[in-house]
């Protein structure tokens, strides 16, 4: 087996580790901090973050962005994609980056359209006693 070269810097080279094991623990600390912030925000729910931006609450945008950051560090450092060749990186990441946003856009748009139709259009949809 070829020798294992690890890239030991995260945060675009701002944080360098001495060994691969140290880097793993460093990434764990980072992921734990992000999760702790998520849970704290989810429990406190600061009122200012409950306003809407592009149809979704700012708080939920923060959660989604933090999740993607966590996903990045799990794949890049735990699944050591950081150490792979660019071709392999792209083979893995590019199909997902194209297909998932596409699916998201189509289905969420359709979902809100159906909501509007059921909300404004078909009053008889709700067989309530009123």
């Amino acid at each position, binding site marked *: *087996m070829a020798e294992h070269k690890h890239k030991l810097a995260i945060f675009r080279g701002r944080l360098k580790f001495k060994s691969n094991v140290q880097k793993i623990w460093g990434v*764990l600390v980072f992921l734990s901090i992000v999760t702790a912030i998520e849970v704290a925000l989810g429990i406190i729910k600061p009122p200012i973050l409950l306003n809407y931006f592009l149809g979704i609450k700012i708080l939920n945008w923060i959660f*989604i962005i933090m999740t993607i950051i966590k*996903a990045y560090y799990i794949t890049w450092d735990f699944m050591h994609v950081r150490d792979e060749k660019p071709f392999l990186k792209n083979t893995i990441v590019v199909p997902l980056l194209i297909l*998932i946003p596409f699916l998201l856009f189509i289905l969420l748009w359709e*979902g809100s359209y*159906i*909501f509007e139709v*059921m909300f404004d259009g078909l009053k008889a949809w709700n*067989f309530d006693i009123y």
Partner: protein
Amino acid sequence: MQASSLSKTKENTWGGGGSKPLDAAYGKLMMWFFIVSDALTFSGFLVAYGFSRFKNIDSWPIADEVFTHFPFLHGIDAPMYYVALMTFILIFSSVTMVLAVDAGHNNNKNRVAFYMLLTIIGGAVFVGSQAWEWKNFIKGEYGAVEIQNGDILQFYNLEEEKRIPIDEFYISSTQERITHDNNVGIWYLSEAKLPEITLQEVMAGFNNDQNLTVRLEKLDDTGHKIILSRDEAEIKLASATRVVKGANLIRNEYGNPLFADFFFFITGFHGFHVFSGVILNIIIFINVLLGTYEKRGQYDMVEKVGLYWHFVDLVWVFVFTFFYLV
């Protein structure tokens, strides 16, 4: 001999015309392609959840009110703490997995075995926690009634300004009504199992206490469930059809049936991934103990199951966000 044939097994790097564009072992490459396709499967599920949620954006159940349990803390409202702990357990077992892979690169058999064992324990704890979550979800806490149009009404105490479980206010009736099975009466007629608390008993309790009212599934502008006045609640409850306690695939006390369906399907599918990951880890762990990879001279198999294990962790990060936080 078995051992000598194993020691001859050698993973060749795919040639790629000499330039080695991917520079990865065949098995690892295939594990990556499987992960990519599985990632698309999970995103399909989560996007379907998003679709249903956007379709019912004004009446979706609030996760903080559903997942409030923590082991050994009965009756204490602890939203999300337990799932956060589960997330941490899974991330931690991912870390021990990377450490096992790293020890494998140094051909350190004992360390690989030690870290694999920790990973297996972490995975087992996670699956157990998941089962406990399911148990609480299925059992339910407050109970509710379903009305004719299929909506769920949850009971609310106006005086104490909080939700009230049905078993705290119902008036038990002396009349006993037994389940109609097909071995009594007409052979082709039977009915579903009767709830422990009947609708009549709940209605008697409701009429007895003027402080009680109901909450709708609908959310107001601030994202809270709409609480009706006593008079409106009486009109709504006139069309009550059944008592709902806990959750199944047809109806649940939390609100929209789709909420429980997606919860069972997505966390169940993920839990099955974790379970099969634990099984794979155990197989590899036994092989490490037997010295299979030591004889091969490389621990590539640990790296491959490691990739799968991290992927399971990765999926959980998304499930956690979209089911519990957003």
